[in-house]
């Protein structure tokens, strides 16, 4: 027999992460008047967009019980590749976009191929790809930033449509597509099955390797979207860009309730996770917390949010 408070805490903890997000937003709204302004909220959305795209991708992978550490490197490679084809008066803007996305698709498919064919744990495979990718980015750019990009390319990361930053529009579209993919399609259902119990999924006639190929490839494409966005925003293809992005993306997914052991997770959760990280760093800026302290505070809040969430899940 447990006490009432524990029970109550649990049922409230089911929505732990949403509540944590709400509470933090409310506190910020009261403590910094500038937080709840349209322009600040748009800034946050804009800042969050790249991490959210990567986090959506890695959510698919984690749901199947895998992991992808090569996100940050894919951002760099795809950014550099896209930038190379994005100089003014060379190709129409669709060309760098398609080639960039193609590069992400290729690297993602490579991850999927090695993971399914070699039986080497995805942690190791994608760690390798992370290094390879970084190297490729440096080789392709000869170690120098690729600058002088066309205006239409720079619109992707810097433009506005009806006052809304274009990256936010991309973010919303990607979120909707990813949610539908996960919840309404056969492939999405199979992802949960593979992560939940791989041998049983196989015995049910699911082609487990196909499902894994798909998730790593999708993750590669979303990383490429992140890479193109970033390149366009900073108007240069940076071979050193994106270092460490994988950790933020994985953190967003896990804060959002995706279990690292596979089989559970939602896109909404991941979106909230990414927003939570974005809101915290934005507000620490607003509160003039120096960047050294920011990191400490960020870590504490992340752990706190996940503890809250896991308390809700314990039955």
């Amino acid at each position, binding site marked *: 027999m447990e006490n009432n408070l524990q029970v109550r805490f649990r049922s409230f903890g089911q929505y732990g992460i949403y509540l944590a997000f709400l509470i933090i937003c409310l506190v910020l709204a009261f403590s910094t008047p500038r937080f709840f302004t349209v322009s600040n909220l748009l800034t946050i959305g804009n800042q969050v967009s790249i991490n959210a795209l990567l986090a959506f991708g890695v959510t698919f992978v984690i749901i199947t019980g895998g992991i992808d550490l090569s996100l940050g490197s894919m951002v760099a490679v795809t950014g550099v590749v896209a930038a190379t084809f994005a100089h003014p008066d060379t190709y129409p803007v669709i060309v760098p976009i398609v080639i960039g996305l193609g590069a992400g698709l290729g690297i993602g498919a490579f991850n999927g191929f090695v993971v399914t064919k070699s039986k080497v744990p995805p942690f190791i495979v994608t760690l390798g790809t992370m290094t390879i990718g970084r190297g490729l980015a440096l080789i392709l750019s000869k170690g120098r930033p690729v600058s002088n990009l066309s205006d239409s390319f720079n619109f992707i990361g810097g433009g506005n449509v009806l006052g809304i930053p274009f990256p936010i529009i991309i973010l919303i579209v990607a979120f909707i597509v990813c949610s539908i993919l996960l919840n309404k399609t056969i492939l999405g259902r199979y992802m949960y099955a593979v992560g939940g119990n791989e041998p049983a999924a*196989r015995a*049910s*006639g*699911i082609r487990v390797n196909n499902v894994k190929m798909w998730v790593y490839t999708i993750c590669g494409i979303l990383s490429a979207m992140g890479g193109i966005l970033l390149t366009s925003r900073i108007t240069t293809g940076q071979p050193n860009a994106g270092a460490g992005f994988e950790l933020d993306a994985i953190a967003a997914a896990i804060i959002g309730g995706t279990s690292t052991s596979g*089989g559970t997770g939602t896109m909404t959760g991941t979106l909230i996770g990414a927003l939570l990280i974005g809101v915290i760093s934005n507000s620490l800026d607003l509160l003039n917390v120096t960047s050294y302290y920011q990191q400490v505070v960020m870590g504490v809040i992340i752990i706190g949010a996940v503890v809250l969430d896991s308390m809700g899940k314990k039955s």
Partner: protein
Amino acid sequence: MPILQVSNLTKSYSGIKALDNVQLTLKSGEVHALMGENGAGKSTFMKILIGLIPADSGEIILEGKKLTGSRVNDIQRKGISMIHQEIMSIPELTVAQNIFLGREKEITGSQTGWLNDGKIRQRATALLEEMGVTISPDIKMKYLSVAQMQMVEIAKAISNNAKVIIMDEPTSAISDKEVAMLFNIIRNLKAKGVAIIYISHKMDEIFKISDTITVLRDGKYIGTKGASELDERELIHMMVGREIGSMFPESNIEKGREILSVKNLGKRNSFAEINFSVRAGEILGIAGLMGAGRTEIARAIYGLDKPDNGSIYLDGEEISIQSPDDAIKYGIGYVSEDRKGLGFIPQMSVQGNLSLGSLSKHKKGIFINANSEESVTAEMAGNLRIKSSGLAQKVTTLSGGNQQKVVIGKVLLSSPKVIFLDEPTRGVDVGAKFEIYKLIHQLAAEGMGIIMISSELPEILGLSDRIMVLSKGKQTAMLSREVATQELIMKFAVE
């Protein structure tokens, strides 16, 4: 004075009562069988006793003292231990290390953090010897069979000075010889005054080992009787609340064309020279002792393992099966004996699991047609009488027998022409067994070919048209229904 007295125990899950005012009186030195259909609340009751889940209300009195607010560890120390169905041990540690896990300091009397594996080993050796078990204390847990792991769990309970030991379906995955060994140990424990609560769906066992029987139905207490006051029919009546006629439906199903045939199938270290065929409407039983290669044959045909040689023909044409999805496409289904490992996805709902093998039938482009998925799975759940609070209930919160029905339903939904049923009634109560037998007959009547692997000879004899007997990976007999008897099957099974 009873050693354990439970009264007015109640537990609900989201408004539905899993246990409703249940009572139990346990005397020391008795084997007390707890009986009831799937979902009657037996496991829930036991989990409350050992402190794994809290009750809503009720009283538990152990040796005259009320048990309150206790955790699993405290309760174990106070003398109640449970031999779980899914055995919880650390595979990489040795038997001795597992037995005394968490109590290393007590055993060695040392106050420092230094391990004294020698002493732990000594204690374990003495303990296992006393039980009359021949398991080396130094072997790693992962090399043991299910039965041996159970013995280790029992050793652990004894070393905890257990006064009450709960066994939840302990014989569902072990061989007859091992059952005999387990019963010997139970008798020894009884002689020492330990009380055993014994849960099983195997009727013959219950009458062999138990002194007293308590029956639950739909979470309610039905009654307690001495085992000698009851016969099987009366007990079944108490459990299901109605008469069940003959377990095996009478039928004369017309046999059709040959659907599946297997020639000279072999796999190194598992089985060799296996030849059989099954016709539409036919039920082929496969009998043999545990480890005779029955499951391995089914796995090889279904594409879970690769056979080394031999050929498989479907409707007269040779086919090659590389993986289960090939097998399903050809119309071969497999209900595994390993429900947890190969049967279902624990995070998913009843519906998600039921439809998992047949989603391609609910395809709208790349999307799932939710309406057709729901109506088809609801119909199957109804046909199989799966007891749940709804299709959205998580499969892991169903009772064991109902989980089994979900797995069978999943395979049936992929509309197989021929189906392997590997221990289809393991952990299933009498009422549901009867339903599954009826279902098997119905499927055969619809023209499905059925291959049923079972360790329960009455089931094999009652249902099969022909019986293939295996011994150590070799096919030793193919008996027709007319000539087959228990004795004959056993003779060929040990050949």
